């Protein structure tokens, strides 16, 4: 029986195949005025993920390192960080794809709380602002609300969002202007705007047809490149712009 819970249950990491250098941006709000870059060595397999290397550092080198992760399988959206300059999920990025020196920084555009942990609250507030849930005031049907495969296809891509904020924090407009609702909120609005079972498209389009809405987008495509779920984010934003444009009377 395991009684010492402070020892993580890992079997394969110590004595692994290669050594990598992790350069991690550290920030302790109680001590530091500014973030500082610190270097660590980690022993990992080429097929391990960057998350495994972070775990190695936390478990064997410096237990004060703070970062978020939950599912470790690219589903929960907890561990988006900047890896060698690009937004990636640490749990979906293999060591062999990023080289032996790996620079890891917290997402840009949010307040850093500690090390790699940023304050997601403004992001979730923007998410909530687009009414990201089904709105249908018809009497409830006895069975499920039916939808044709063609109608389902219209928003299939945007159902894949895991709210990791990789897209929003890769957008230069968002870095400069925190009022911009951001690509992720638009993706999640798209999810319902183009759903034939939903009735609140007009409200959502009004919310996005503002100074802080879709018109701030400059079609930079960083968001599409950053998305770990390969959602065509820029296309979703253009779909919404077009819906507003052609819906205008």
């Amino acid at each position, binding site marked *: 029986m395991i009684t010492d819970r402070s020892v993580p249950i890992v079997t394969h990491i110590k004595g692994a195949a290669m050594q990598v250098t992790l350069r991690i941006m550290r920030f302790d709000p109680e001590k530091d005025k500014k973030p500082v870059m610190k270097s660590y060595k980690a022993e990992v397999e080429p097929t391990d993920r960057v998350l495994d290397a972070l775990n190695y550092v936390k478990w064997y080198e410096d237990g004060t390192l703070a970062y978020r992760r939950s599912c470790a399988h690219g589903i929960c959206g907890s561990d988006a960080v900047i890896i060698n300059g690009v937004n990636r999920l640490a749990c979906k990025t293999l060591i062999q794809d990023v080289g032996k020196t790996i620079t890891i920084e917290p997402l840009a555009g949010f307040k850093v709380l500690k090390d790699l942990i940023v304050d997601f609250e403004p992001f979730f507030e923007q998410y909530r602002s687009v009414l990201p849930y089904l709105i249908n005031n018809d009497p409830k049907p006895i069975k499920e609300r039916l939808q044709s495969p063609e109608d389902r296809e219209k928003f299939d891509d945007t159902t894949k969002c895991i709210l990791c904020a990789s897209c929003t924090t890769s957008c230069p*407009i968002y870095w*400069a*202007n925190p009022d*911009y609702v951001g690509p992720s909120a638009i993706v999640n609005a798209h999810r319902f*705007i*183009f*759903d*034939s079972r*939903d*009735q*609140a*498209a*007009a*409200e959502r*389009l*009004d919310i996005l*047809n*503002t*100074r802080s*809405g879709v*018109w*701030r987008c400059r079609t930079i495509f960083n968001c599409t490149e950053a998305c770990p779920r390969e959602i065509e984010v820029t296309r979703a934003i253009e779909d919404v*712009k077009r819906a*507003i*444009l052609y819906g*205008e009377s």
Partner: protein
Amino acid sequence: MQRKSSKPRDNFELRSWYFMRVSGALIVVLAIIHLIYVHYVHGVDEISAGFIAERWLNPTWRIFDFVLLTLALLHGGNGMRILVDDYIRPKGWRTFALTSLYIVVFLLFAVGGLVMLTYQG
């Protein structure tokens, strides 16, 4: 995807976005014509007050220049307004930048437009 919204729509940003595209497309055409005529057919070393006076004897060129000036100022001015909104965050500085921008655009338009419309040769 239905149901009309109750709030009156403010389409200013939509129109601004649309205008940037339409004016951009027009500016390409006008700027190319300008470039070919002034810089290629004639060349900068030929440009003098006399050259302009002769060219402006033809009212079509006056209208052409006036349209290009107006479009470039509205397009560039509106583009700068968008950039200021994004990049100058302190409220006071933003108001200062926008006020300066509108004054500069207005002065350039007033001086340029006045000359083009009233020049007598």
